[in-house]
């Protein structure tokens, strides 16, 4: 490689490592305060949860496809571990509800957010801005520990009498409060810990970006990834506390028998509940969605950041419309706080309020479209390198497009009346989160792997992983649009079989056609296929850590941003010498330069 990298690649082992941390397994890996180690801890834990959440869903898909039949292979295991709720290996409706609620909770709060925000953010933000670590390393460690503790509580709740929470990841009261088991209490306590973890992480990321940018790293020279993390952190910081408040109130309802969310005259199982009443179920929904709409942007913005970095690097040209991207993402962040009630059109809020939220929902689509357009335009005229990270990114763009466009009919109250709570909604947001965000996360893993390990992951198996995932993702989620439009509701433990068999009256035939129901079996096998498609990834991942092809350089992709201008892996303290930044983040193929990339810390020639 070139002389430039060579000068930066001189590692100074010892000097940096000896300095803060004692060596040894515990200080080095478990109670580390180094942002990179914490980032990897987050990443590894979150990937485990991602896999676990996927397995929950696989079993649910079996039950939807073949209601009341024993789950193959896993059935006896379920019965052994969970007992009565899975007797004879058959998933009971209660168990289905638990798995459903926990699938959503795990995927959103314990897998995607920790991976996209905490893992990637922790590892990369300090490196990209030229900082030696996060602003508050010990707070950083505490935030990971809170996450693990919250995760453990959630996980333990599967094994308590009555099992885990059953009221959906949305946990609407009064349902959530009146289910007589303790799963919901575990859920709330777990959530409070996860929220605490996110808040600490958000404070840390924002303070780091404000305070620790290297000399010369002005705001408009920040890589777009850093902007994305910055806005994400603000969303977490300001949207999570209301959910925390709501969780505290639901906890009071559950343990102190208050009636925050329990209305007067509430009857449970046909008898009047012994509560004071006077509460408001809608209050829960407002507080929940006040968090949960910004939360969906927490799921997507870091992914957009990853995508922008990889596109710039692999098209070998500057991102198209960097400033538009930055202003759009700031607008998006702001607007995401005032659209939440588009999840509540059917609660009878009144047409005026509906109109307000329809309007804001349509307005928020504009910056989303601007971002997507900029990313597409960035491809134009590039000499694109189609490596595995780039393939995942290229798939992200149309997949996110499908997810976003199908959001528009949901954003209008009149079309949402039909689509609300159907599989159409499931398809909508999974298109954004699964072939969208998760693809971007895969891309990020393939892309930054050489910086972390000094080795690259195998290209061939990367491509196998990519193509199979792309095909199966679409086979899973595309049919759900059809099911939803045909009226198939979500959260039914038999996939709509009973509903379909019911006759609704003399002139109205059964609910769902057999074609629509048969799609459930099709989706089941597509989901199994998706699971199998992850095997090459998992093997490739672990194999490449030790045996992958050596990256051969500190900057194998010939990238411009600062994280590549460090020794590999970056030592404690990150940079051999404090970096000085001279230029913007995407100076690729600048005419007149002798190479097609100019790192941010390369001085102007005299």
């Amino acid at each position, binding site marked *: 490689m070139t002389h430039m990298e060579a000068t930066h690649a001189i590692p100074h082992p010892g000097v940096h490592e000896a300095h803060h941390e004692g060596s040894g397994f515990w200080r080095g890996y478990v109670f580390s305060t180094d942002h990179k180690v914490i980032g990897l801890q987050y990443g590894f834990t979150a990937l485990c949860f991602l896999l676990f959440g996927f397995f929950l869903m696989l079993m649910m898909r079996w039950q939807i496809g073949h209601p009341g039949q024993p789950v193959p292979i896993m059935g006896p295991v379920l019965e052994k571990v969970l007992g009565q709720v899975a007797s004879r290996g058959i998933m009971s409706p209660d168990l289905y509800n638990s798995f459903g609620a926990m699938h959503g909770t795990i995927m959103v709060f314990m897998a995607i957010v920790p991976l996209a925000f905490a893992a990637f953010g922790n590892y990369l933000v300090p490196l990209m801005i030229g900082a030696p670590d996060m*602003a508050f390393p010990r707070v950083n460690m505490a935030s990971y520990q809170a996450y693990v503790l919250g995760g453990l509580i959630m996980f333990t709740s599967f094994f308590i009498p009555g099992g885990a929470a059953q009221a959906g990841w949305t946990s609407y009261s009064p349902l959530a409060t009146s289910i007589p088991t303790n799963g919901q209490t575990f859920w709330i306590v777990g959530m409070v810990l996860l929220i605490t973890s996110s808040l600490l992480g958000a404070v840390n990321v924002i*303070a780091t970006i404000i305070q620790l940018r290297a000399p010369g790293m002005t705001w408009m020279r920040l890589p777009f990834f850093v902007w994305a993390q910055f806005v994400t952190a603000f969303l977490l*910081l*300001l949207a999570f506390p209301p959910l925390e408040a709501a969780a*505290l109130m639901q906890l009071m309802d559950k343990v102190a028998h*208050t009636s*925050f969310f329990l209305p007067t005259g509430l009857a449970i199982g046909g008898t009047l509940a012994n509560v*004071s009443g006077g509460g408001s179920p809608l*209050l829960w929904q407002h*507080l929940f969605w006040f968090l949960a709409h910004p939360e969906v942007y927490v799921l997507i913005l870091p992914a957009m950041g990853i995508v922008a970095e990889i596109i710039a690097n692999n098209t070998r040209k500057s991102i198209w419309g960097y400033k538009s991207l930055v202003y759009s993402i700031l607008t998006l962040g702001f607007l995401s706080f005032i659209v939440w009630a588009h999840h509540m059109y059917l609660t009878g809020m009144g047409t005026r309020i509906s109109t307000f939220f329809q309007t804001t929902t349509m307005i928020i689509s504009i910056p989303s479209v601007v971002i997507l357009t900029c990313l597409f335009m960035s491809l134009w005229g590039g000499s694109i390198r189609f490596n595995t990270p780039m393939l995942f990114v290229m798939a992200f763009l149309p997949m996110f497009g499908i997810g976003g466009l199908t959001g528009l009919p949901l954003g209008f109250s009149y079309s949402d009346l039909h689509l609300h709570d159907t599989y159409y909604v499931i398809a909508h947001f999974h298109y954004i989160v699964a072939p969208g965000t998760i693809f971007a996360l895969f891309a990020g893993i393939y892309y930054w792997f050489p910086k972390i390990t000094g080795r690259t992951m195998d290209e061939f198996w990367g491509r196998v992983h990519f193509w199979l995932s792309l095909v199966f993702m679409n086979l899973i989620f595309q049919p759900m649009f059809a099911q939803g439009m045909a009226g198939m509701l979500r959260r039914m433990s038999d996939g709509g079989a009973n509903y379909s068999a019911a006759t609704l009256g003399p002139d109205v035939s059964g609910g769902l056609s057999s074609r629509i129901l048969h799609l459930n079996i099709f989706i089941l096998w597509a989901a199994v296929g998706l699971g199998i498609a992850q095997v090459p990834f998992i093997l490739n991942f672990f194999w490449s850590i030790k045996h992958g092809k050596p990256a051969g350089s500190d900057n194998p992709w010939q990238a411009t941003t600062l994280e590549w201008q460090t020794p590999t892996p970056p030592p404690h303290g990150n940079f051999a010498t404090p970096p000085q930044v001279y230029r913007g983040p995407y100076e690729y193929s600048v005419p007149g330069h002798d190479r097609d990339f100019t790192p941010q810390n390369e001085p102007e020639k005299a």
Partner: protein
Amino acid sequence: MDIPYTVELRPDTGLYNAKVGIWLFLASEVMLFGALFSAYILLRVGAPEGYWPHGWLNVPLGTANTLVLITSSITTVLAWVSLKANQFGRFKLFHAITLLCALVFVGIKSFEYHDKFVHYEFTLKNGKFADGHMVENKLKQDGNSFTGYAVIRGHVVEDERELYDLNAHKAPAHEDIRIDGAQIAKMGNYGPWHNTYTAIYFTLTGLHALHVIGGAIVIGFLWGPGSKLWETDPERFTNRIEISGLFWHFVDLIWIFLFPVLYLL
């Protein structure tokens, strides 16, 4: 490389790291309490006519607590100023007062809580309502029926709403009333479960009290064992006092909102 700006100010922001951190943290706290205040408004607006309590809390005690917290805010500032002026002894004195104030505040709050837990409302079978503080409780509950008796110091009213607006209906002189188990249709004390007002009252003030206790623990640590830092790194120590002080002011400010909302309105 050490982490920069832990003590010295970053030139372009004019702040050291922890100060950015605490302001961000306080922003999230604003959202936390903001959500609970919104809940208060929604529950109050949604309450049936005449069933939102007025005058249930002891205004003189609330006023006293307000004054206690304001005092502690002043001594917090003075403690910090003393450090800036290099007067460690005065710092110790002022923060001792801060800690004392925290103790008094929590003491008064516990007394108020206790008062609510011994205050009972009985729905009687004759359609009337008995209300007062428990003097002697010899009741036994079996399902929905009661045996034994209770003595309360209070009064009996015809319309439950009289119990709700104590500002409008000045309660008649309290006397000891004996209630037999057989008369009782329903009973309960004024704990969080009593109605949505007590629910939000206990939740808001309870969360606030936890903040007071947490803040006092931090300030107590910096006042006691943590103050050794003054000898080795006085600037950093002063910053810590400033940060903990900012948190303390925020906790006071929350109370300045809580007091009128819960006690006066």
